[in-house]
């Protein structure tokens, strides 16, 4: 090949190589946030400094109280009554009969968290963020159950593992002396909490959901002297369930 030809070949080859490499040198990345539902847990009720007086007349002062949340699930609006019935039955519509620890999906957070129920009233604990597909959502399902050893927020020096609810303090009958007590429950439930339809999509990409626990009526119906430990635990757990609502923003 003539000298001029070899020179042209070399220039052309270098041009090709530089063209390819220059395109590749445009190292870049971009990120656009998607739909996100922030979930928080909030309690309203007497703090450690105050006292409960239940319907039975007992004055209750609480020194420690812990609640274990196991899951929060965002539920799409059901379009038919048939699907609502199916969803109520375990094992249908793709719902597992048992949920494993940290069973998560785009609409469910499944990491267990133990809360200090006596923290400042109104203070929120962030439970996480759900990243759901677009759609209309009408409720969340709040799950509580026994905490395991991997739960976040396990208090130091207090054995909450295996318990859904742990409350310690003292109770007084009118005119009586303080008597220490401990109420523990290993019960579990998933409580549906409905709200006005929230449509998530390109036009609305964020939602904030707060699970609100009204703890003022926790000890209503609890006979500290006439009932068993198990019965007291069940009663408080039932009051916890009845006093929970949801706030959506």
């Amino acid at each position, binding site marked *: 090949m003539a000298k001029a030809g070899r020179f042209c*070949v070399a220039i*052309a*080859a270098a041009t*090709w*190589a530089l*063209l*390819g*490499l220059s*395109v*590749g*040198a*445009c*190292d*870049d*990345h*971009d*990120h*656009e*946030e*998607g*739909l*996100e539902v922030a979930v928080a847990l909030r309690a309203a009720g007497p703090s450690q400094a105050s006292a409960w007086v239940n319907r039975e007349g007992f004055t209750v002062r609480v020194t420690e109280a812990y609640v274990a949340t196991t899951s929060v699930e965002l539920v799409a609006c059901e379009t038919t009554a048939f699907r609502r019935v199916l969803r109520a039955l375990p094992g249908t519509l793709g719902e597992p009969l048992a949920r494993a620890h940290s069973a998560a*999906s*785009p609409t469910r957070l499944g990491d267990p968290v133990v809360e200090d129920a006596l923290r400042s009233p109104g203070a929120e604990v962030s439970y996480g963020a759900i*990243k*759901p*597909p*677009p*759609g209309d959502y009408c409720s969340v399902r709040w799950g509580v159950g026994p905490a395991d050893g991997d739960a976040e927020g396990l208090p130091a020096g207090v054995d909450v593992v295996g318990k859904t609810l742990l409350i310690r303090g003292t109770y007084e009958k009118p005119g009586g002396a303080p008597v220490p007590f401990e109420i523990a429950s290993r019960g579990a439930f998933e409580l549906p909490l409905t709200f006005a339809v929230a449509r998530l*999509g*390109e036009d609305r*990409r964020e939602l904030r959901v707060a699970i609100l626990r009204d703890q003022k009526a926790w000890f209503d119906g609890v006979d500290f002297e006439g009932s068993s430990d198990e019965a007291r635990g069940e009663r408080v757990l039932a009051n916890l369930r009845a006093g929970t609502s949801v706030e959506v923003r």
Partner: protein
Amino acid sequence: MKGAWLRKLAAAWGLTVAVGTTEIRPAAACAACGCGDPTLTAFGTERPFAGRFRASLDGRYRTDTVGQARVDELKLTEARVDAQVAWAPLDRLFLLLTVPTLHRRVEYVNLARRSSTGLGDVEIRGKVFLWQDRDFGPRHSIAVLGGVKLGTAPLQRDAGGKLLPIELQPGTGSHDPLLGLQYAATLDRVSLFASAVGMAPTAGTEGFRASPSVRTTFAAQYSFVPAFGLRAVTDGRLDGKGQEDGAAARDSGGFVLFGGMDALVSPVTDLLFVATVKVPVVQALQGFHREGPLLGLAVAYDF
């Protein structure tokens, strides 16, 4: 004259748009998907003369959907440009260097969108002609193809220095050997090509290992005039299971068959353009995985 015309056809035959490869994570996007024999772009099918040098740019566009709808589905869009140089140090040996650049865009189930652009994994291939039916103007030839895809792509990170998800990485971080056989025939205005190449990926970024695969290509080209031809192509890919976090990836494995057409235009000597359209005609992919059509445009020049 006829020999020169046939060589030109063969050179035109050497340009094709082959489907790109990228590695994916099941429920992520298929990183090693795509079909076809990419050596058609730079090697051609005829036996080269010693010292032959060819450079090409091969652009491809494809889409891919992996994962379960409304659960973990990812929608991938990928644009890829391969800068290729092929050189024949001997008349029976052709060497190919491919430097890819990829732009990948992924849409997640919650409408989050992420994209990345960067250099992909460099690939080196060699083609050795084993047999041809006659020394001068061969009509049939058989060649063996070998090579390796090197895990050279720079890892992509976000502004905080965290690695981007595997579906956004332009490479696999693995060194993957490949081996195959090719057959070519030139009969007047008709050219035939068949290829079967196997790839055995190794473990790469974050323990991900792409699916081992066998890719086949069958093509038939008709040249209306020396400057223009049409080529019908079928590309098949048979995948084994990929590995993710030590377990078989749900949305990996299976078989896909693409059918399509290439249009080849050579306006001047040694310069060739190829436009390609391929669509999946058979999808028997495992898990939740669907591949979309492929579009391509390539240009090559023989020095």
